[in-house]
């Protein structure tokens, strides 16, 4: 069970895991402190298959300090899609905890669409446990907030489980978006995937810290991690820290991280085929994003996400 952040004991960049993200400096000055967490519970009992996605919205108003506590429990052989939407008005601090438990052979598709207000601060600590043959398929679209920290701690506890964390960060202005993931492989024959792509415009600052920790017992682990960031402006900044910590001797783990601009080769190729420079850029950047959105299983949700990302791209790439 993760502990919520306390306002009188906030992590500063002196703490290693927070070195790229200065939370105390970003918090609104006139916060009205919440007295109690607001609990949202989603529970699928054994064998229940959710046909429709379950939608939850977390909002907040100016100067508010909210402490949402989302509990999702999927019992054995059950299946569900959860769409979590984040929005709000004005300057606020959403200090959220998500506690996700996936039982044996159960499956959760978790879509998170973060469209917090421009002055918002959101910290979201997510704790996930996956039992034998469980599947967690997460997708996160991060584009809101002045400062956001999406911190995931996943414990793979049963054999044959598979967890995926895919995400797109679209940051502009002086936005700061931090994704920090720790995956612990505590059982053999499990798979974990991390695939994040970040677009940074203006003076935005992106952070990706991903760590795969393979315990000694977790033989035949298949761990994959990739973070690609595209800088659309010379003032944008990306900090990436990929890590593997492996104690088992028969595993397949890889990580990759890139930060850069669009390659000239494909741009020239497209222009030789008649596309204007702006059109070629748009197509390439769109493809960069779409490849991650493609990991979302439901086509209707994919379409909704692409509509949002395309709108962002049109604004960001306007010359």
């Amino acid at each position, binding site marked *: 069970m993760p502990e919520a952040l306390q306002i009188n004991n906030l992590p500063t960049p002196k703490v290693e895991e927070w070195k790229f993200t200065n939370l105390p400096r970003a918090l609104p000055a006139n916060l009205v402190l919440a007295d109690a967490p607001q609990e949202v519970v989603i529970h699928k009992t054994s064998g229940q298959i959710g046909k429709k996605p379950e939608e939850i919205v977390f909002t907040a108003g100016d100067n508010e300090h909210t402490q949402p506590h989302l509990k999702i429990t999927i019992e054995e052989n059950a299946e569900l899609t959860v769409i979590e939407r984040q929005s709000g008005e004005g300057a606020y601090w959403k200090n959220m905890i998500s506690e996700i438990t996936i039982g044996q052979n159960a499956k959760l598709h978790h879509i998170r669409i973060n469209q917090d207000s421009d002055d918002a601060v959101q910290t979201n600590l997510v704790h996930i446990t996956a039992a034998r043959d469980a599947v967690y398929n997460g997708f996160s679209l991060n584009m809101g907030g002045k400062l956001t920290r999406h911190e995931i701690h996943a414990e793979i506890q049963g054999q044959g489980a598979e967890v995926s964390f895919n995400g797109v960060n679209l940051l502009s202005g002086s936005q700061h978006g931090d994704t920090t993931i720790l995956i612990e492989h505590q059982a053999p024959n499990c798979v974990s995937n991390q695939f994040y792509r970040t677009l940074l415009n203006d003076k935005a600052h992106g952070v990706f810290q991903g760590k795969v920790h393979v315990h000694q017992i977790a033989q035949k682990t298949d761990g994959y991690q990739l973070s690609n960031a595209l800088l659309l402006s010379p003032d944008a900044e990306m900090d990436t820290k990929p890590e593997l910590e492996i104690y088992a001797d028969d595993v397949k783990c890889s990580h990759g991280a890139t930060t850069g601009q669009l390659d*000239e080769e494909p741009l020239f190729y*497209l222009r*030789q*085929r*008649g596309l204007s420079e702006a059109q070629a850029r748009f197509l390439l950047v769109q*493809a*960069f994003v779409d490849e991650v959105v493609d990991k979302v299983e439901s086509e209707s949700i994919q379409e909704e996400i692409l509509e949002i990302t395309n709108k962002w791209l049109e604004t960001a790439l306007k010359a």
Partner: protein
Amino acid sequence: MITIKDLKANVETDDAKDGETSIEILKGLSLDIPEGEVHAIMGPNGSGKSTLSYVLAGREDYEVTGGSVKLDGEDLLELDPEERAAAGLFLAFQYPVEIPGVNMSTFLKTSINAIRKQRGEDELDALALLKLMKAKCAELGIKDDMMKRAVNVGFSGGEKKRNEVLQMAMLEPKFCVLDETDSGLDIDALKVVADGVNALRDPKRSFLIITHYQRLLDYIKPDVVHILANGQIIKSGGPELALELEKKGYAEFVGEAA
């Protein structure tokens, strides 16, 4: 059709000598390809073959320092790469670029309509495009499922080159430059690609075929063969020049010119 006069071009370089940041590659190249003709340029490594194709297509890392290139009287050097494409220039790349996340049909649709739009023509609708695509794919022996794949991603060497010819067939350019189209192809793939190119030969379309080897010219018969060395055309002749070159090697010709 295309007239190149005294073309001089530099390429930017990282390993600068004596403070120079660019090296002259084309040193006064002149070439005239009349409508409907196929010309071949052969030359040793480093003679400027690929530079010529990039300079014609307008790649930014090359700086033109002199001369002119005119396509049907229009000054190509004044145009952006996409404007040159709309004017009718097509470059079949030596190394077709992989574009992850963009599938072939989206790419072809965007490309054709971008060119049509620049030419002031109506855009093709999805159905018309699909029909065109199917017809051209069938002609070139390309399977329909290739249209769902990302552009050149995971394509074999043969598929990549066939894809270049497919694009050429769909865009119907006036002037095609084939940059070492034979590189990385086995004989069977070479024949397919050559057949595709031959099918596009037309009294109104000209070709410039850039190659190292005579082999490609067995399949695509040129009207004129030029030898390029040190950034200049040093000799021109009929198809027999290619055979002679194959027999004697470049050294003799390069020596002759020097």
